[in-house]
């Protein structure tokens, strides 16, 4: 029976999938995700057993030996009636059990009040804006598509959207939660182990819903502090002449109208903050690795790489491209 | 398959009246559909109200006069409506004709008042969500008055035509009367929501 094999495949796949890397509910590295993984496996096993039992009865019902033309006698009917009632009762018990289990799981996932750090996440078509607010505005900073968090502490994530509905989902850390215009949602995440955890927008949000990834980089507190300090600082202008030319170009061309680079006159707010773009692992919401080449490719023709996104194709000579990408790369 | 006649239906009436008539059940089904529609509109109204910091949103409550007058007229119309329905059951053509004319008037007057109602809502549909929902509720109910008025007018025409003296026509009149009662009953909660909830 094909589906029978499939169930085996299913359960085994869960155990295998548990091992493999990025963005899987079964590769749990966060407090919440671990709980959820146990719940998932538990429910899946129970349900697989139920299914198997039903199949056994089905096969028996078809294959059981029959006296030719036995007519449904009243007492055989009564016997079946008892069995059906029993089966229904069993269903009720199982259902009740699963319901209670999921209640407890939900309780376990409650908001933690003593979050060490609050990060505001704004969904944008089609990238993620992460705002690290600080009582002292000078200390506040923001980044895009890449969020650093300290390991082992609760992080309060405040979810807002500036256009359509998005959904914040880093399966290895926690379940998903929507970002809804006009509302604020909050979840708590907590990474148990250092690592890079990939997430992706989970609510259809238009043309480039497919290319709206984010990375949560969990590192020990010291490393996180170092990173945060570096991010707070304004951009550093490197001595490299190409980069310097690129900077001038950036200010002269449309770039500066949409992007902010703290420490320069570029203060646009439509696009991601590029103050430390060079320090990020990927660009364009996880579309490309952050290399000089991919930076140049992206700036040269964003509409071919990510059709419909809001970054226009600015006509540039190859020299200008080289200078701009050099400048971007220099913004560590 | 071989057939054996065990039942003779030739003495049955050639047309079911009241609950024996499919039309009666059809009318009920449609009232159920539209009833659900009204109920949902009211649910939306309270949902939006539950979100708003204050209700009504940035507007004085609607003026009471036209709406209340209309409500009074609608309630009053129930009396002749029930009489009409009774006359129809008695197949009294003359009375039914009078009743239909009266009901046509009772259908037309509210439409005029409805115009004034929109005028004193003190808000436009595109000002905010509160305006949108009350304009929608009022519009929704207006379409029901219009449809039933047209139905009544057509029936009146029929009753003065050669098709008049036929139990089916009287059945139609009864169903139309029942539908008008529904239009009136459906208005009461809408009236409460539009005019009195904002004053709570």
């Amino acid at each position, binding site marked *: 029976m094909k589906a029978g094999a499939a169930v085996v495949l299913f359960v085994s796949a869960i155990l295998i*999938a548990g091992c493999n*890397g*990025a*963005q899987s*509910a079964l590769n749990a590295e966060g407090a919440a*995700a671990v709980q959820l993984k146990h719940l*998932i496996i538990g429910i899946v096993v129970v349900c697989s057993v139920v299914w198997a039992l039903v*199949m056994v*009865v*089905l096969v028996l*019902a078809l294959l059981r030996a029959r006296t030719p033309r036995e007519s*449904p006698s009243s007492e055989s*009917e009564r016997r*079946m009636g008892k069995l*059906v009632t029993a089966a*229904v009762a069993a269903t009720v018990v199982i259902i009740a059990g699963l*319901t209670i289990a*999921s*209640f407890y*799981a*939900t309780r376990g*996932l409650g908001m933690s009040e003593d979050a060490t750090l609050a990060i505001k996440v704004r969904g944008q078509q089609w990238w993620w804006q992460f705002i690290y607010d600080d009582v002292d505005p000078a200390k506040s900073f923001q980044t895009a598509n890449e969020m650093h968090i300290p390991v082992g502490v609760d992080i309060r994530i405040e979810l807002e959207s500036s*256009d*359509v509905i998005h959904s914040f989902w880093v399966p290895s850390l926690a*379940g998903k939660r*929507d970002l809804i215009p*006009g*509302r604020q949602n909050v979840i708590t995440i907590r990474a148990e182990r250092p690592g890079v955890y990939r997430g992706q927008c989970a609510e*259809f949000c238009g043309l*480039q*819903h497919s290319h709206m990834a984010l990375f949560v980089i969990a590192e020990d507190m010291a490393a996180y502090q170092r990173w945060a300090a570096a991010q707070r600082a304004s951009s550093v202008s490197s001595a490299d002449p190409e980069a310097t030319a690129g900077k001038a170009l950036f200010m002269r061309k449309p770039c500066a109208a949409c992007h902010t680079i703290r420490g320069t006159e570029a203060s646009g707010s439509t696009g991601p903050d590029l103050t430390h773009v060079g320090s990020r692992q990927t660009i364009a919401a*996880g*579309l490309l690795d952050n290399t000089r080449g991919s930076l140049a490719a992206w700036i040269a023709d964003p509409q071919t790489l990510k059709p419909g996104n809001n970054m226009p194709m600015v006509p540039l000579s190859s020299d200008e491209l080289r200078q701009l990408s050099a400048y971007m790369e220099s913004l560590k | *398959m*071989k*057939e054996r*006649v*065990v*039942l003779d*239906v*030739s003495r*049955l009436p*050639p*047309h079911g009246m009241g609950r*024996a008539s499919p039309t009666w*059940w*059809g009318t009920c*089904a*449609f009232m159920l559909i539209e009833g*659900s*529609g009204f109920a*949902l509109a009211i649910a939306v109204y309270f949902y*939006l109200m539950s979100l708003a910091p204050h209700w009504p*949103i940035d507007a004085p409550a609607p003026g009471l006069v036209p709406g209340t007058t209309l409500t009074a007229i609608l309630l009053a119309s129930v009396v002749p409506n029930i009489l009409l329905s009774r006359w129809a059951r008695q197949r009294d053509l003359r009375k039914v004709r009078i009743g239909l004319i009266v009901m046509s008037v009772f259908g037309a007057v509210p439409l005029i008042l409805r115009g004034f109602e929109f005028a004193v809502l003190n808000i436009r549909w*595109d000002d*905010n969500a509160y305006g*949108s929902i009350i304009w929608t509720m009022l519009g929704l109910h207006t379409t029901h008055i219009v449809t039933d008025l047209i139905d009544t007018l057509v029936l009146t025409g029929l009753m003065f035509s050669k*098709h008049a003296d*036929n139990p089916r*026509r009287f059945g139609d009149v009864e169903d139309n009367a029942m539908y008008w009662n529904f239009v009136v009953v459906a208005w009461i909660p809408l009236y409460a929501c539009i005019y009195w909830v904002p004053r709570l």
Partner: protein
Amino acid sequence: MTNDNKPAQPTDLMFGDDELERRLAQTWRTPAGVWGALTTVDHKIIGRRYIVTAFVFLALGGLLALAMRLQLAQPEARFIGPDRYNQIFTMHGSNMMFLFAVPVMEAMAVYLVPLMVGTRNIAFPRLNAFSYWIYLAGGLLLWISFALDTAPDVGWFAYVPLSGPQYGAGKRADLWAQMITFTEVAALAVAVEIVVTVFKQRAPGMSLDRIPLFVWSMLVTAFLVIMAMPAIMLASSTLILDRLVGTHFYNPTEGGDALLWQHLFWFFGHPEVYIIFLPAVGMVSTIIATFSRRPVFGYLPLVMALIATGLLAFGLWVHHMFVVGLPKLGESFFTASSMAIAIPAGIQIFCWLATLWGGQPVLKTPMLFVLGFIVTFVIGGLTGVMVASVPFDTQVHDTYFVVAHFHYVLVGGAVFPLLGAIYYWFPKISGRMMSETLGRWAFALIFAGFNLTFFPMHILGLEGMPRRIYTYQPEMPWAGMNMFVSFSALILSLGFLVFFVDVIRSTRSGQIAGENPWGASTLEWATSSPPPCFNFRRIPVVGARDPLWSQPEELTVAGGLRTDRRELIVSSVVEAQPEASESSPRNSIWPLLAALATTVMLIWSIFSPWAVIWGSIPIGITLTGWFWPKQTPEDES
């Protein structure tokens, strides 16, 4: 009220069978030619039309699915761009839900219910004709817009604000919303007809506890349609208002709310699932009884399960919104109710197993599809239990796990039984048998193809693949399984190809089926195949739940209906005692004209609010023409 000149009129008691059939045919026939086709109100012709049209839409929707599988077979494929891909998956969903699944189930009822309850035509036959034309218009609207590259691109549940005035540029979302109005009007019309047919036109003696289970399931379905569809009509109308005249239902800054849409949509959207699934339950109960050679086990529990499902259906829409951040208490309630729906489903499964156990199963093609249904639907039901758990859902919501789940429920739970039902009732509808050989091939390919296609999607979902993405990146671990799924989809579509070939072949050259080729027990098998335009020579009188089994050799009938006008028996709701010999309308062109007028008004109103006023005038005129007495014998009383 008695009628004295009655004996003067010809009744079926006065003629021999042949003469009677000639006269009835004269009264009930649909004339040949286009005019006849446009004016007919015969529930069999309209039902057949409805079914064929729905299957055409199924085929088109299937092609869209293949296009998507082609695009997803490899990472970062460039076969379809994001814009077109979004249109395609929106079309696939909307088409399958609104133009295939719901209409096809209602179409089966339009054809079968009047035959199963032993009457001569459906209640309100002209409304029935109107319903089909409106449905056709809605389908054309959607597909023409797709052909013109202006199809909706917002997903089949069109969440605001993406589908709202600010982000849904152009008329794409309006076309979607208006297509909804078309199909819902059609669906509501049929629902009303079914309710009244079942309540008032049952054969004498068919008391409530003798109604065939398929009819019961359609009755419950019809009530679900009546209660649920107004929600989506309200939703789509308010969406159009927001987009066209600037109302603020979904604008948070002016007191509106984006979640209001989700509440309205899912208050319809969840019952929708049962609107599709309950008819399938009826089909399974019918087929399983026939091919187990015994009455279905637990008639009463099955009816109760149908009703319970219908009621619960309205109590769990929020389980589609578990990740929007609602109060915990509410979530817990909806978890419980969503889990509870598994209990009636369980009752049904166990009763069917008991029927098989206690019967003599015969594995004809319809039965194969039913067995396939049990295997797959139980999986779908169990994954349903999984997503009903809030915490579980937070990981799989909007992933391919959910895609797999609802395809198991809808294809496994509804399409399998439907295909079985086609094999089962095809002889009645066409008078010819379908091929057992091709049937077995079709079943094997579809069953295997389906499971190979959709089972792996569970795993893809748990591995983090979100739904509605037009591509994914090479570094994600999904490529291999997607390729496998895409190949399996070919097997599945090959299965459907075989099915369609079989249908076309059999209509031409299938072997002639008798009145009752399967030895079934319900009334539709008591008349010839295909049934004559008047369905039954004389209206049957029912004395048992399985009339053709309790008295196989002769049919007890009622006599005395007039032959010179379309006449049928109206009976009481509970006991089905004859109350009147009511007339049934003749053919008429007015339903088509009314449908055209309505179509013009609805499409026009996407572009201008004034259409609602000016466009309604022709509708009023056509409706008056529709109901104005025509001085036919049908008008007598």
